[in-house]
């Protein structure tokens, strides 16, 4: 398919055309939501880096990261905070001219090793790292947190959840079956097969090549306290709000309205891409 690289001013003299288009970049607006739910502790952690600095955002990239400390395990908050601080520190050193996907995978390995070193597999965390750079999205994910893109009228799950359900489905596919009943009925289908804080992190779900971003795209990173409570139609409605702040407010109202008796901590980061 042919692509045009020139822009013509409407009603301008024919000779008045640009050799190169005026560069116009996507800008990113972010907002976050964090609530404790019905739990006594907040085990989710998150961070934005460069969200309020347009120059750094363009030259160094924008970082958004969410970590969900694992409930039922000792020191979930310690784990998620350790993941965030390590990833932030590594992002500050990111070489934008080198391979970004490989660097994001390395951040996960470093966060994993640090948490394992501290908690010796007695605590852990999920993690989703997103870097917005050069009109593209790079991500890396461990665990079962959610990474969703709203584009046009559709919602797309970008990451693959690392849990028993996915593992059993993959076994079925590799055996030539398309029946996911064994996964649906697995007694520990929600158990994580991978998290930050393992002796050895063997599987990282990530882009190997950047996802080109488009005007109007909305990216949501959230813990399962949001992604597991609101259904796709609700998420789509929330992410269709005009601003990231309103999107977060609608997700907040949606989760509260669901009124779960045992509502997990919930955290959501939203990034809206616009020209």
């Amino acid at each position, binding site marked *: *398919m042919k692509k045009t690289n020139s822009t013509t001013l409407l009603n301008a003299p024919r000779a008045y055309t640009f050799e190169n288009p005026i560069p116009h970049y996507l800008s990113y607006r972010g907002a976050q939501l964090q609530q404790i739910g019905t739990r006594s502790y907040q085990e989710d952690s998150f961070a934005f880096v460069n969200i309020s600095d347009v120059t750094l955002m363009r030259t160094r990239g924008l970082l958004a990261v969410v970590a969900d400390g694992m409930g039922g395990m000792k020191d979930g908050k310690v784990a998620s905070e350790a993941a965030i601080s390590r990833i932030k520190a590594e992002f500050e050193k990111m070489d934008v001219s080198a391979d970004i996907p490989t660097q994001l995978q390395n951040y996960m390995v470093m966060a994993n090793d640090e948490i394992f070193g501290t908690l010796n597999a007695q605590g852990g965390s999920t993690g989703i790292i997103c870097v917005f750079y050069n009109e593209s999205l790079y991500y890396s994910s461990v665990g079962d947190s959610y990474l969703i893109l709203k584009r046009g009228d559709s919602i797309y799950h970008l990451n693959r959840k690392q849990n028993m359900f996915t593992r059993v489905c993959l076994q079925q596919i590799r055996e030539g079956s398309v029946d996911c009943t064994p996964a649906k009925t697995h007694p520990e289908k929600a158990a994580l097969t991978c998290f930050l804080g393992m002796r050895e992190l063997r599987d990282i779900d990530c882009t190997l090549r950047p996802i080109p971003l488009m005007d109007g795209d909305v990216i949501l990173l959230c813990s399962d306290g949001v992604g597991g409570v609101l259904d796709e139609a609700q998420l789509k409605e929330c992410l269709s709000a005009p601003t990231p702040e309103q999107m977060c407010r609608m997700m907040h109202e949606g989760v509260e309205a669901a009124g779960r008796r045992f509502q997990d901590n919930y955290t959501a980061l939203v990034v809206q891409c616009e020209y």
Partner: protein
Amino acid sequence: MIDIYSFTSPGGREYNEDSVGFAYTPYGAVLVAADGLGGHRGGDIASKTVVDTVLAEPIEDTKNDKDWIKRRLEAADREILDQQAARANKMKSTVVALKINGTKATWAHVGDSRLYYIHNSRIEAVTEDHSVAFKKYRAGEISREEIATDEDQSSLLRSLGSRSKLKPDFGETTEPLTAGDGFLLCSDGFWEYIKDQEILFDFLKTNNAQAWSELMMLRVIERLKDDSDNLSVITAMIR
């Protein structure tokens, strides 16, 4: 180097009327997917006939790949008509065939089996189904995603074995193939359960054809209904 992987399943049906196949050549590869119609000993034979005929030796490395594919599809069409006469049935088949020859790729399709071509991290080309539902989409009556669930989705306007003049649609790459390009050939039992953008996003996560296929199948397997259609995929990655 071209990395190719194929997967086919009867889905929720008793018989698999889809067939897939591929062959490497000295300069590239030929890939074929076909979705048969006509039930057991009908549709399954029709689709297998198509795949076998397209992949029959010798696969010439001609200068005109479009012409080569056209001749092979015409031969497959004749074979199906012969089978219809021999078995006294009305077996038919769709087909999507791709020939990769050096840095050039050429493809053709009949019916609603699809080819997706990914280049520069974008879906560069998708075939247009020969179906009533696709016409409705073209006319603006339904959205692209609604094609999958439209009541006329299975009403094909063209097929092999239909006794009317064979009219394949052709496509080809306009820029040289480069490492990181990908092709997906699939039957409707697959694409009905996955969105175009999901095909692209999973492609961008992988560096081999099997992993790409498996990531897409992980999405599809959760969405299949008990009586879901046969489904087939062939993924190819230029490395």
